[in-house]
Structures are given as structure tokens and as C-alpha cells.
């Protein structure tokens, strides 16, 4: 029985030899030694298509790759804002309350701001808190030592330094200082103005690393 019928599905007939397949295609690539080194590029339209794809790719990367920044998860982000929404501003009262109650201030001044009579001065009904912020900012930045009279009572404890100064155990940034001070000036019935970050920064820059203040030094300030 001859199986060499071309349409027999049980065996596929090969039309050409292997060697000729190789040599014929090699000729197409123009690299046969008997050719005069005539290398044929791929057809022009194919190459145009490739360049078009590369151009599309480059443009797309430029716009949507987020500048290959590891922090960018949203491909729509652009330099200078673009279509990214601005990050929500943090409410200083919320931040200030959080910082106050994070075992930093509340252990001494109490969450109610009343302090410990005889030991820790209160923050409620206190001129030091609601009065000038020049003194208040310095107290929080650099700390306070020595006797102080608050709301008619005498206290003589040491208030630690909270700012980014030498000897500080907390190293709070200026905006944290501003947030906490804003909070205590507007909580528990206190009604004073908030404290701005710029003012804290200015005072911090002016005073640098200062030892903990005494009341005598502070009274010289406006």
C-alpha cells in the first residue's frame, strides 16, 4: 500500500530538503559568501512600524511611568501637581491632641491639663499658655527650669526640652511643636490664637541650642 498520496492525513509529505531550506533562506539574508556582501535590511515598512512602536513606547513611558520613582503608585502623577490631588492638610488640633496624649505631655500635665497641684503646673487658665507665644514656644523648644508661678501657685520642676535641640530626648520637628501648642491654647476652655509653624521655625533659628530657660530670662521677652 502506498502512503505517498499527498492528501493522506496520516503522514505529511515534505516538499523540499533540509539543506535547501537552509541555503535558500540564507541567500535571502544576503549573507552567502558568493554574494557581494549585499545585506538586505528588512522591508522598509516593517522598519517604519518598529520605529513607530518605539516612539509610542518612549512617549508613553515619559508620561505614565511616574519617572520610575518607587513612591509613585499612580501613573497619572506629574511633576508640579498635575492630576494628583494635593495631600490633605493635617489638622493641627488632631495632631496636637495625638502628640499630647502619646505619653509625652499627659503623664505630667494630665489629659485634663490640670497638672498636679504643687508639682506640675496646669495648662488650664494659665497666662503662660494663653499669653504671648514667644515665651511658650521657647518653653516647649528648650525646656524650663527653676521656680515658676502659674495661676497663683508656685512650682519648681524641670520641664524637658522637646524641640530639635541639643540635649533633647524628643527631637520634635517644628510642625509638631506648633501643633501641640495650638492644641493646648484651644483646649479645655482656653481661647487663644493658634501657633504657626513659621513662628516656631523663626524662634528656633534665632535661639538655636539654648539651655532650658528660667523665668527671669523669659520675662525679658515680649
Amino acid at each position, binding site marked *: 500500500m502506498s502512503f505517498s498520496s*499527498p492528501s493522506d492525513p496520516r503522514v505529511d509529505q515534505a516538499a523540499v*530538503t533540509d539543506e*535547501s531550506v537552509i541555503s535558500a533562506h540564507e541567500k535571502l539574508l544576503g549573507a552567502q559568501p558568493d554574494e557581494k556582501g549585499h545585506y538586505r535590511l528588512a522591508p522598509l515598512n516593517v522598519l517604519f512600524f518598529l520605529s513607530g512602536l518605539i516612539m509610542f513606547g518612549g512617549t508613553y*513611558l515619559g508620561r505614565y*511611568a*511616574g519617572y520610575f520613582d518607587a513612591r509613585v503608585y499612580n501613573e497619572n502623577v506629574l511633576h508640579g501637581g498635575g492630576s494628583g490631588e494635593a495631600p490633605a492638610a493635617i489638622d493641627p488640633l488632631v495632631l496636637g491632641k495625638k502628640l499630647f496624649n502619646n505619653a509625652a505631655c499627659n503623664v505630667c500635665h494630665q489629659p485634663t491639663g490640670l497638672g498636679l497641684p504643687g508639682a506640675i503646673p496646669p495648662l488650664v487658665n494659665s497666662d503662660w499658655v494663653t499669653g504671648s507665644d514667644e515665651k511658650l514656644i521657647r518653653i516647649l523648644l528648650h525646656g524650663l527650669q527653676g521656680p515658676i508661678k502659674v495661676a497663683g501657685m508656685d512650682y519648681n520642676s524641670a520641664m524637658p526640652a522637646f524641640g530639635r535641640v541639643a540635649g533633647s530626648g524628643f527631637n520634635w520637628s517644628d510642625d509638631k511643636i506648633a501643633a501641640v501648642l495650638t492644641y493646648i491654647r484651644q483646649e479645655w476652655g482656653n481661647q487663644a490664637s493658634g501657633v504657626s509653624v513659621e513662628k516656631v521655625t523663626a524662634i528656633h533659628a534665632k535661639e538655636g541650642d539654648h539651655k532650658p530657660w528660667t523665668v527671669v530670662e523669659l520675662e525679658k521677652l515680649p
Partner: protein
Amino acid sequence: MTTAPTNAASAEVTPIDRQARGPLLLLLVLGVLWLVPSGIFALLASIQLHSPQFLTDCEWLTHGRLEALQETAFLYGWAANVGLAIALWVLARLGGYPLRALNWTVAGAIFWNLGLVGGLVGIATGDMTTFSFFQLPRYVQPLMVFAYAAMAISGVLAWSGRRTDSTFAAHWYAVAALFLFPWMFLAAEVVLIWLPVRGTVQAIAAGWYAQGVWTLWLAPLALAGCYYIIPKVSGRVLSSYESAPLGFWCLLSVGAWTGGRHLIGGPVPAWIATMAVVTSALMLFHYLVVALNFRGVASAPGTGATFIRFGVSAYLLVGLLEVLTSFRAVALHTQFTFFATAQTQLGYYGAISMMFFGAVYYLVPRLAGRAWSSAGLVAGHRGLVMLGVVGSVAGLALAGFTQGAGLLQATVSQGSIFEGMRLPLLLNTCAQATLLVANLLLVVNLIRTMATCCTTVDATAGLFRPSMNLEAPAS
């Protein structure tokens, strides 16, 4: 155009085939046999998709493990064995000498398949790595690398010791697949298993490997087979062959970057998904080159060409879908849905496997020295597998559309999405059953063909017509 051969050495079955008969038939038979367990796993998993309580008492067959079993058996059982056989045979035929180091190939094949069985048992008992397409347990992985390297030695030797100095596209793709897979596998082992990278970088690395399975391993194996078979059966030079080198390097250098499209909107920086978009678009060039080169298969005769036609069309469609679904606006509807599964099914079954089937139908008569035993089984397999692929892809895609539309609206509950997907997933199950039956037909056909193969006298005398010489068209 062809001319009469100038020498008598144009017989289609040569000493090359006779010598390679044993090892390559072993690989082919093992590969085809793996279609059966992989088909069974796929069928069971597809039933669980619409009836989650199916087999729910059995810890070994819980859905997650069943999916891992199915993809591992398919990729490392069917695709690996058959792809390797195709690559080795193509390199041998183009190299012009019989294959050397075939003992290594046989040893490698045995250890690869034993390792795979051990790995599947490991997955079923809960040692899977949880990385897609890389689920083999860690204790089996080194064995697989060495077994593959053993099998590949023969091919690389056949290429480096080839008779002619010039090379052909099938050479490049076959050598690339043989050479790159161990590196890729080892690299993935290092960054995922031995010295795991931190957090989501694992997902990125796993995506790189999963994409590499397609781009650096299976697609080259399938394309090697096609590049060899199409000119052989059509008797014509491949059109636009001058672009073939560019298409080859495009696939290899650009393809592995496209894995990032699975991480759109995910916990990775935006540039990963954007690179995927850009490189998927660049890959269109590779698909164009393949489309141009393989134009000749449209009119080529033979069973192999029928399968390859289907496979190439699916391959091109996969490329197009990759680009489309990598754009975020489209991914919004298709991500995390069965549409992605449909794409995977189209790629691995509709494209790669069909191209492999075509090569199998072409190869086996030449290796076994006799024709396939039954034309009916050939036609049955061909019809059913095409039907099955179309059915499963359509079913999964429809399910994906429903799911995507439902997921986008927060008011649609997951329960109602599930109900909406039931019918398309049933279609998928029927299609998987069809595929299993089709592959059983192939197994029967193959075994019947092999049953008489090595015992009787070589009957190749009337089997093949003498081939002509291919001439390049006048430029």
C-alpha cells in the same frame, strides 16, 4: 520554487531519524501521555469553578491545589517533553548529523518525568510554592534543572557541530529555548526560594518568570517547529524572511518585560505596569514578523499544517490581546477576571499546544518509520481539540466579561456575579471534557502507531515522496 535534487540523499527518513528514534519517541510519548492527567485535573478544576462543593472533602484536590496540579502537569509534563523533542529533532535535521549524547537525553527525560511526578505529589500534599507556573516544590526544583540541562546538551551539541555554517530561524529559536530555560529557572529559584526577595518584589519576580515561560521557553520551542515545518511542507521560501532575525531578538529581549501587566493597580510602583504596556506594544513587531513569515502556511497541505494554521492564528490573537489588556483603561474591566484565564488558555492551548500538535503529527511518521495508524483518529482529534479550545476560550471569556462588568459596580454582589458566570463556566467544563476526549484519541492513535513500529521491517520505502531542492526567489 523547487528544482530536482542533485544527489540521492534526499530521502525523508535518514540515519539521523533512525538513530534518534528511541529517545525522541520516548519524549513524545511521555509528553502526549501527560495530556491525560493534565486534562483530568483541568476538567475537575473547571467543575469546581461552578460547583465549588465538588470534591471538597479531599484535601489533595482542593481547588487551589488542583489548579497548581493542572498547570504544572500541562507545562512541565506535556509542553516540556514534546517541546524538547521538537527542538532536538529540528536541530538534528538542520545540523545534518545524528544526535550525539543521546544517553544524556534519555537519562534527563527519565529524571525530569520522575521529578515531575514527585513534584505533583508534593503539590497535592501541600508543598506548592504558590507562585504561578512555578509551583513545583523546592525539593524537586534542582533535579528539574539538571534533568533539563542533560536533555538539552544533545541539542546544543547538534547546533554547534552543524554541517553547514549558516543558520536558519528554527536553529535560533530552538537553541534559545534549550539554553535559556535553565538560567531562567535557576534565577527564579534564587530570588523566590533560596534567597527570597522582600515583599511584593516576589510578585514581580514571579511575574517575570511566568512571562519567561511563554516568551523565553515555550514560544521559541513552538516557533522552532513552525519555522522548520512550514517551508518543508509548503515548498516555498518564507516570505519577508529578512525580518526574522529582528523578530527573534525582539521576542527575547522585550518579551519578558510584559509580565508587569498582571500587576496593574497593584502594590508595585507604576513604572512596572507602564513598562509592560510599552513592551507589549513593541512585541507587536514580533507578532507582525511571525505573521509575515508564516503567510505560506495558509495553503500548505497536510495534518501538521492544519494544526499550525490554528496555532499561528491563536498566537497572533494572543499578542493583540496582550497589548489591549495591558492598557489600564481596558485592564479595569479584565483584571482579576476569567478573561485573563481565557487569554492564558488561548495562548498555551490554542497557540503553543496546537503548534506542538502540528509538529507531533509531522514528526512521528519520520521517527517511527510508519504513518499514523488511523486517519479517523487523526480527524477526530483535530476536530475535537479545535472545538474544545474554542469552547473553553469562549466560555472563559464570556465569564470574564460578566465578572468584569459586575465587579466594576459596587452594588452588584459577588453572589449575583457568580450566578451570572455559571453558564459560561459550564461551557468551559464541556470544552475541557472535549479536550480530554480529543487527547485520549491522540494517545490511542500514538500507541497504536508505536505498537508496530519497532518490531517489523522498516516500511518507509513507500512512505515519503522524494523532496526537491528549494530555490530562493530571484531578488
